[in-house]
């Protein structure tokens, strides 16, 4: 049953994603690319759970820590770089 719910959520999110992104003007496509890239760093949530679980083997912890590090680069780098770009988009009067 959980699988059904997750599938339903997936389907809705895909439709929503298409509707949202199709509206972004080409002006903003580069920041959109890096901004959505940052969102894909959400795997960090999974990495945290795998790493932080009690009683894991060393190998699991190493894998988890690497996952945390890489996902963090993706998240932090992605958001910061997007912000840097967007900070430049200004309207003058």
């Amino acid at each position: 049953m959980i699988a059904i719910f997750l599938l339903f959520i997936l389907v809705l999110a895909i439709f929503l994603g298409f509707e949202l992104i199709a509206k972004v003007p080409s002006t903003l496509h580069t920041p959109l690319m890096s901004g959505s890239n940052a969102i894909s760093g959400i795997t960090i949530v999974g990495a945290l759970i795998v790493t932080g679980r009690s009683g894991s083997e060393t190998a699991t912890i190493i894998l988890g820590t690497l996952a945390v590090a890489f996902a963090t680069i993706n998240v932090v780098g992605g958001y910061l770089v997007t912000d840097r770009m967007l900070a430049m988009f200004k309207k003058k009067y």
Partner: protein
Amino acid sequence: MEHIVELCYIVAAILFILGLKMLGSPATARRGNMISSLGMLIAVVVTLCHRDVVSFQWIVIGAIIGTIIGALAARLVAMTAMPEMVALFNGFGGIASLLLGWGEFHGGGAVSWFKLLPIAFAVLIGGLTFTGSLIAYGKLTGKIETKPVLFPGQQVVNAFLLLAAIVCTALYCSGSASGAQYQIFIVIVVLSFIFGVLAVIPIGGADMPVVIALLNSYSGLAACAAGFVILNNVLIVSGALVGASGIILTKIMCKAMNRSLANVLFSGFGGATTAVGGTTEGGEVRPITAEDAYYVLEAAGSVVFVPGYGMAVAQAQHAVRELGELLEGNGTEVRYAIHPVAGRMPGHMNVLLAEANVSYDQLVEPEDVNPAMETVDVCMIIGANDVVNPAARDDESSPIYGMPIIEVDRAKTTIVLKRSMAAGFAGIDNPLFFKENNRMLFGDAKSSISTLISEFK
């Protein structure tokens, strides 16, 4: 507690959605990005409060390393190096999904196919995204051969590897190879890496932006798969949003280049084409000196700048803005016409002009400027080529026929700034250069414009 965590995940997902929505307009985009990052922060903090998460030592180490690297990279990268930066970050997202799947598998929580299958997907897509992004990064920075690498039997090798991956995944999920399951898993990991390499090397360096958008979509799918591994809503939603975003960007780019995705991925475009570049036929070319160009501009009532990849190469965006301001001071109406695939990534020109402080309401799209093109006195084409090629409109035999262009040839006068008669990305002739009302201002775009500016002063 459990419920509160889940509710917070819903909030995080809402913030991602709102953030993407706000990215839809330049006025709210920056706030949208912040809202999206707030969603990420909530998701992370709440996960740390999760009852399963008990030891923090390694988490802190990983997070600190990641934050330092990420922040430094984001700080130091030059605006022109954005495409390769995005490629790299993207690859890291992919490898994180792979490692997460691996950790979950190693942790032994996985017994039924219901868990094993998502792990296999997370690993396959994550690994492919990782190596594919690294190759794309290498090609964009010129660290590896940018030309398409094609070898005989490539398709056969690919088909064989795909079959191997399917068989391994089936064996691994069915659990029928219980003794060798770990070995099979490692084979899947290796295969995923090979896939990424093989998928990207046959694609030319200039097509990398399309590849990056596609890999971006894959990293979203990998996050989705990871979400099914740990049965987490927010991973699935965010992954799906990113997946959709990547696919739409890919589609937009392909459409603007008038090529199919299959053509981009498999045709080895850009390998042969460089040879065609720099042709001569087509008539007489009328060069112009910067001084004469100054007189033309000085007398113009309306000027439209059309920037292209050459402006990025020459780093001429600041000079262009300065010239634009001088012209405005002179009472000339100045606009910037931006083609969606000018440059080498979607929105490339917008970012550069924004960096140079050009107000975004001076930027116009082809649909808006084309209808009234006859009324424009001067079009300054700054290192653009394919996006203003009238062959795309007139010549049915042209490879870019049907691609929407900025129809500068219908303006009263055009001035093209480029270094030579060489072709652009598509490697084809541009009849515009031979038109009677066109002048060529040869030389590096930045120095040409600087000369023009000094004339004005």
